[in-house]
């Protein structure tokens, strides 16, 4: 594979795809250098929600003010979602955002307070390319997570095991590497972990059980922090994270040897994420044919990638919320604490049809211009679509900067090379034949992003 092809593959995994106008900057750049520039690119925190609204005051008010508060809460949730989509669509720090998305799924959480959700999101962002150790500690103290996993109800003599269990099962060791007794004991260590009305972490000493606990074979007067340290001491934690990361970045089927090697790097670096990513992105096997063009894009990946490729701006960003819903991934709303399963789980009859139609809806008012052989039924169909085009465009209110898109395409680029650039999987003859009869480059591009191939990265 030549360097540019490798870099395009790198961008589709470490970012949200490569755009035509990014090619010149990477034309003669060695892959190692492209990796370094991705690792060193960072951006600011996401802060669309300025302050936390006073929950208790609003809930004590009358029915009207309660209703207004609920509406404000819902609006904040929407604002947070749209702000993150916007950031992903416009940032230069693509790897940081792609990894924030990974940690968003790993530390899956739901909160009805957008301010807390935002706080957790920024913990994941600021540590996305930093230290997993630091991130784990900060997540364990985040109000959103403490609330979601009921740790406020975890008290001395009245333990609630949910938090302790998920920390072990889903965030660190993974199933099978601890016992039920370990769960019970560590729950005691986390008693008293809570937060105040300002969203600040506090340890409620009165609720904390500071007696001896036995955890993973050791006994002591362990605190929550001690538990987290002990979990990180186990290499199984490094292995568990690396296995998930492999499925996210490389292949749904983990290669045992590669994952073990990743775990070595991660563990010996004391859970630093940059060396781990650099190891993966510079490994030969990362660029193996069987690891390219084979991952199903997550709904967010798909929407962000499409928006970046075509410089789409949204006068009605709510449309992205609707698309997230029908495709099965709403940011800040994982189905449960185990996150989104991903892979083929994204695809069923209805979500696939939506994925195949969304590009033309956003780019061309729902019309896929068709120049092939048509029968009367087809022509009637196309006529209806043409008539509905303005209506769809008015509903969706998205604009495409076609000039910017075309200016990035090399002057004498063949259709095959354009297709090969836009699509990650190999372009077969059926598609090539189709696009060769397209009326113009714009029509051709719309067809290309409406293929099943476009759903893979």
């Amino acid at each position: 594979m030549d360097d540019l092809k490798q870099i395009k593959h790198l961008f589709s995994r470490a970012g949200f795809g490569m755009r035509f106008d990014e090619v010149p900057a990477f034309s003669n750049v060695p892959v190692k250098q492209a990796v370094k520039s991705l690792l060193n690119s960072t951006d600011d925190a996401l802060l669309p929600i300025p302050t936390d609204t006073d929950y208790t005051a609003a809930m004590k008010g009358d029915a009207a003010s309660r209703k207004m508060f609920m509406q404000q809460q819902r609006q904040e949730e929407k604002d947070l979602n749209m702000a993150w989509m916007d950031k992903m669509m416009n940032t230069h720090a693509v790897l940081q955002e792609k990894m924030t998305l990974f940690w968003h799924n790993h530390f899956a959480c739901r909160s009805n307070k957008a301010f807390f959700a935002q706080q957790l999101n920024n913990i994941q962002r600021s540590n996305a390319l930093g230290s997993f150790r630091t991130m784990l500690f900060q997540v364990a103290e985040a109000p959103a997570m403490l609330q979601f996993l009921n740790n406020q109800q975890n008290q001395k003599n009245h333990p609630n095991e949910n938090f302790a269990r998920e920390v072990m099962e889903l965030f660190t060791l993974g199933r099978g590497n601890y016992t039920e007794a370990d769960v019970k004991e560590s729950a005691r260590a986390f008693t008293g972990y809570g937060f105040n009305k300002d969203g600040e972490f506090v340890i409620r000493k009165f609720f904390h059980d500071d007696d001896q606990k036995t955890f993973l074979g050791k006994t002591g007067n362990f605190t929550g922090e001690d538990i987290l340290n002990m979990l990180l001491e186990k290499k199984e934690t490094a292995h568990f994270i690396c296995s998930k990361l492999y499925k996210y970045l490389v292949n749904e089927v983990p290669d045992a040897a590669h994952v073990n090697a990743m775990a070595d790097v991660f563990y010996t670096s004391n859970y630093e994420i940059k060396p781990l990513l650099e190891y993966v992105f510079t490994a030969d096997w990362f660029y193996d044919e069987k690891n390219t063009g084979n991952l199903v894009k997550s709904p967010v990946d798909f929407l962000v990638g499409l928006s970046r490729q075509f410089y789409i701006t949204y006068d009605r960003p709510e449309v992205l919320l609707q698309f997230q819903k029908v495709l099965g991934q709403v940011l800040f709303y994982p189905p449960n604490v185990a996150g989104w399963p991903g892979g083929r789980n994204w695809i069923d009859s209805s979500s696939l049809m939506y994925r195949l139609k969304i590009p033309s809806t956003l780019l061309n008012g729902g019309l896929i211009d068709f120049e092939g052989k048509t029968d009367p039924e087809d022509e009637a169909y196309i006529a209806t679509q043409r008539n509905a085009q303005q209506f769809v465009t008015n509903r969706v209110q998205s604009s495409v900067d076609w000039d910017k898109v075309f200016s990035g395409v090399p002057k004498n680029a063949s259709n095959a090379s354009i297709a090969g650039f836009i699509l990650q999987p190999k372009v077969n003859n059926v598609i090539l034949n189709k696009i060769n009869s397209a009326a113009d480059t714009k029509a051709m591009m719309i067809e290309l992003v409406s293929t099943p191939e476009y759903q893979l990265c």
Partner: protein
Amino acid sequence: MDRRHFLKNTALASGALMVPAFLKPFEALGKSELRGHKNLVIIQLSGGNDGLNTIVPYGNDIYYQKRSTIAINKNDIVKLNDVQGFNPSLSALKEIYDQGWMSIINSVGYPNPDRSHFRSMDIWQTGSESNQFLTTGWIGRYLDSNCQTCSKPYTAIEVDDTLSLAMKGAKMKGIAVQDPGKLYQTTREPFFKDLVHEHSADNLSEDNLGYLYKTMIETYSSAEYIQNTSKTYTVNSEYPATQLGNQLKTVSKFINSGLQTRIYYVSLSGFDTHVRQQDQQARQLKIYGDAVAAFIKDLKQSGKLDDTLVMTFSEFGRRVEQNASNGTDHGTANNILIYGGKLKKAGFYNEAPDLSQLDNGDLKYQVDFRDVYATLLDKWLNVNNGQILTKSFAGLNFV
């Protein structure tokens, strides 16, 4: 396009001389498969419907003690026996009950119940234990089991825009069809038609690209089969003009037109009654009762009721005692309502819920919901429930 013309195009384009099995018109199936087969209709009430105000234990004083303002007045209740009766909003179902087409199972739940909507709904849809996270649904795994009657992509249809987890298997999934005409239209986009008809054999590999093409092709042919079959039947019975009414009318159309589908799934939400329960629940129960009554009578009239079983559930019931907002909070066990023409035990399947032996204010379950699923799988769908559920369940005797 007639069959010969179609075959010619496919052969030329792909160079293959054999038409892949799933592209053959479905009329080619043996006529024997068209003989009356059994239909299962699942109706999901989302939000945690308050079972105690649905099938009201009016004969138990504790009910009135715990619900000073939201209990249903004895005089308003549509009495079914000495202990329990319908919320008056379900009056349309009295006729159904009297005909022996309804069976009510009390106190259905599971060990270590979860009171989170998402979590409990996942547990019900995947048939998992309370501490398990499964990524496939129980109906999806039924589709995966590759049994005689569940090998077609349209074997399970959800009348909705998106597909629930319940319908997703590891290999096979149900199909979401809110409106068969609309789905058909969507798949007839000339560009997609071409991709379907001209794809090469390479596209159908086992990898993810192959999976996408397979799904696209199956959706394309299922949409055509569903539309062309169902449009031959017009539903003449009256249905209420509600979304659930329309969805059940669509199911009736599918069943009566002879679709080879075995399982239908529909949902009605709005049952999370934390505040001012009586009004909100009354509205939703009326929508439910009126639509289901119309559906059952329609199927009786067209001779399909004996071959149809309907099961209604919710992800949990609600607490016995009312809260401070004239509502109730998330609880545990709930009733399941079964409808059909050939029920083994019409009326009440088991005793009314015990309101004195509670678990921290919540009902204790008497029947594990997996036993209900097991009954449906073993006796109605003719598969071994142990292969679909996390282990073998004994099942019940309502059918």
